[in-house]
């Protein structure tokens, strides 16, 4: 993994060029409205991203690509967000800076503190507390109760729960013998994860519920020795889907809007058709930054950022984003395969699956390939919670890409 002599010099410079050009263009676009603050933050962005990529190659002998891919994604996202609303663009820049800080913080915490696999009960309890907070203090936004605000700062607890679920799964499957001794041991895990999914369902946060399920079923598929559990899981999903469709109107509406949005264009199909208009208008090369109409697309900063990018920067850029996610997921899996420690291996898998499935669900949704469920596009969409949790996840993945010190790992095994 830590192959010396190959340095991602060239892509890093390309990224640099991209950002400089985008900045230049945005400054021309904004014209005389540019103030010193914007200029400063813009240049700040370029320096932060360039420096953090450089520093990372120095301090981590792990994977050099994932951070690079992510910074490319986030650069495209910020350019688009800034173009739609410059104040949000600056906010996103601040989130990005905090995100990168958290990335390094996570990296160092995990590097110097070990024994994360022993805290499974803590993760479970923390998850339930977060759900509790959401139910008590949560507010509805776009149909789902998934926002909590404290002192003016709003965040989505589910973004953190995602990571906790990955830690729960990794702790569980890296030490299955411990659970096998218990009667119905394997069923406890299933019960807990399904209780999460049910809670998300009640919050009407279908997208996140799907992500949880996706991570769970895939990890289970890889590590569960009792194969019939995997089958149960698939069966339960089918039953849950059918029940959800018949019992809950919001599920049914989404399904109908997917099958024929043109029929319900004024209401349920409005979002998805506006997205399709944008993508269709963009063509392969786009209309040009600032020359499209992203304002026509609802929730364009978060869920539908991809449609706006396609309209202004072209379907080719859209395909580029899909390919970047594909490489990111591929790298994540590669890290998992090379990782010797089972716990970190599963962590790496969980995080790669998280990035992969979340981006697939929202990209497929805005393209009308699958029913639309509200989710952010990791690293591209606007949003503090999403950016921060994604960077924490990336920090964990970065640690997983390194060879975990043998001595400590050995000690853990003897416990």
């Amino acid at each position, binding site marked *: 993994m830590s192959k010396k002599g190959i340095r991602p010099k060239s892509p890093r410079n390309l990224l640099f060029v991209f950002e400089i050009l985008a900045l230049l263009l945005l400054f021309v676009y904004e014209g005389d409205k540019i103030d010193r603050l914007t200029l400063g933050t813009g240049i700040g962005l370029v320096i932060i991203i360039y420096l953090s990529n450089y520093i990372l190659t120095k301090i981590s002998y792990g994977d050099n690509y994932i951070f690079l891919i992510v910074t490319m994604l986030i650069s495209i996202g910020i350019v688009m967000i800034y173009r739609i609303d410059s104040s949000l663009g600056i906010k996103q820049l601040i989130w990005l800076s905090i995100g990168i800080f958290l990335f390094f913080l996570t990296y160092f915490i995990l590097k110097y503190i070990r024994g994360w696999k022993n805290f499974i009960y803590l993760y479970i309890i923390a998850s339930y507390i977060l759900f509790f907070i959401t139910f008590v203090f949560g507010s509805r936004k776009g149909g789902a109760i998934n926002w909590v605000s404290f002192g003016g700062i709003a965040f989505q607890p589910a973004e953190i729960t995602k990571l906790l679920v990955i830690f729960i799964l990794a702790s569980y499957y890296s030490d299955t013998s411990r659970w096998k001794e218990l009667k119905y041991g394997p069923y406890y895990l299933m019960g807990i994860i399904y209780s999460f999914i049910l809670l998300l369902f009640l919050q009407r946060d279908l997208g996140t519920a799907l992500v949880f399920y996706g991570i769970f079923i895939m990890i289970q*598929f890889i590590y569960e020795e009792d194969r019939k559990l995997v089958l149960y899981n698939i069966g339960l999903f089918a039953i849950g889907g059918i029940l959800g469709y018949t019992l809950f109107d919001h599920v049914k509406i989404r399904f109908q809007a997917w099958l024929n949005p043109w029929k319900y264009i004024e209401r349920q199909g409005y979002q998805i*058709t506006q997205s399709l208009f944008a993508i269709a208008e963009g063509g392969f090369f786009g209309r040009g930054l600032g020359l499209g109409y992203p304002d026509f697309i609802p929730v364009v900063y978060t869920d539908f950022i991809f449609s706006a990018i396609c309209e202004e920067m072209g379907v080719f850029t859209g395909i580029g984003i*899909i390919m970047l996610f594909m490489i990111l997921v591929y790298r994540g899996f590669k890290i998992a395969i090379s990782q010797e420690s089972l716990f970190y291996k599963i962590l790496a898998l969980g995080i790669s699956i998280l990035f992969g499935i979340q981006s697939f669900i929202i990209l497929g949704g805005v393209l009308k390939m699958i029913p639309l469920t509200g989710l952010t596009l990791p690293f591209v969409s606007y949003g503090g919670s999403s950016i921060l949790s994604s960077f924490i996840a990336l920090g964990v993945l970065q640690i997983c890409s390194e060879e975990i010190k043998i001595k400590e790992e050995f000690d853990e095994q003897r416990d």
Partner: protein
Amino acid sequence: MNKETKRIIVVLVGFCLMFISLIVYISYFQVFKAEAVKNNSYNKRLWINEESILRGSILDRNHKVLAYSEKKDDLYKRYYPYGRLYSHIIGYSYREYGKVGLELQYNNALLNINENAAINEIKNLVIPTTEGNNLRLTIDHELQNKARGLLKGKKGSIVAMNPVTGEIYAMVSLPDFDVSNLKEDWKEISENPNSPLVNRATQGLYAPGSTFKILTTVAALGTPNLDKDYDCVGSTKINGYIFKDYQGKAHGHIDLKQALVKSCNTYFTEKSIEIGKEKMGNVADKFLINGDIPFDLPTKSSQYPYKGNLDKTDIAASAIGQGKVLVTPLNMALVASGIANGGEIVKPILVKEIISKNDKVMKSYNTEVLSQGTDPITAEKVKEMMVEVVKSGTGTNARIKNIEVAGKTGTAENASGKSHAWFVGFAPAKEPKVAVAVILEEEGSTGGKTAAPIARDIMIHVINNIKD
């Protein structure tokens, strides 16, 4: 490799497939779907241009204005002076109801927008577009008006065209609707069981009745070994099904020409079995039945399903335009044109040219040959027979003084119980200037009695009034 690693690779491959399917889907969407999606009236981007660009006018062949835009309260408004007359040709362009017809098809031309977005952007930088282009149609307003009047409000359709150039002179479909009064009428229009929104000329599928015998005749002439003589006794039994002549009348000993002139059903049913469905089908294909007719308005394909399961009764029935064969009036006008034009079928055109605001012709549409329906000799023979139909056969009501008219009548039975009355033909026979197809839906009378006189009036009008 252990089994966990294998499973990890399975999941990874699954993810790669998912992402690749996204790429394939978005590309497919962009290539095949995007155009239609863009033109949806709910796409607000379509109307952005409308605020800054004066939409072009639509003119008839003599430069008479049929649709135009004017500024009113800072917004451009579209006016249609002849409310109903062009509802199926020009259509409409309204924010609330979207765009249909030529208004949709030629939207970019009318707004002077380049289809290539990039070129358009650059063009706009140099000289911002403020006025769109005009469309000059091939339609003759007087004839269009006359044709609509001739239908006397009955359900039906008329297509009149130049068989040599493909220019459509008139295209009427009844019932129609008032495009300048959509707001009040919309509910009624959309609920009317007679579906006034459908353009019957291009999208109405009808049994062609005896007019289809023109094609059976072409097929018969193309079958060298076929015995062209026949003894008609007024009825015949094919595969257990009895085919009768009109009012059971026996025609006696006849040849092909007399069979067409007298529209003898038993002759064509019997002979079609010998000709066979393959040969019949090939002729139908060449006359664009079973194929898409490229046209400025949406069309439906006529059908002669010879590749499917056709038994002898079906073949016999289709030889006289009954059973499984269905045609559009536009397609029948093309059949008449093909015979008139030495077998060559030309592309029907509705838009003659696109003219810029400073009267420069931006683009003109020329004649294109779509298909060689049959060879010139066969076409000439069929033409002679069709002349005789009008001279002394079922189509005498289409006769014009001093001018030779060729035609064929049809009376098509259908599910409603009342037969459709058809007439297709062209004139003058020697040097055709107009081909016409007339259908009166569920008229309950013969084509010779009701459709032929309408066709005659249209042909007279074209010959006397349309010079170029």
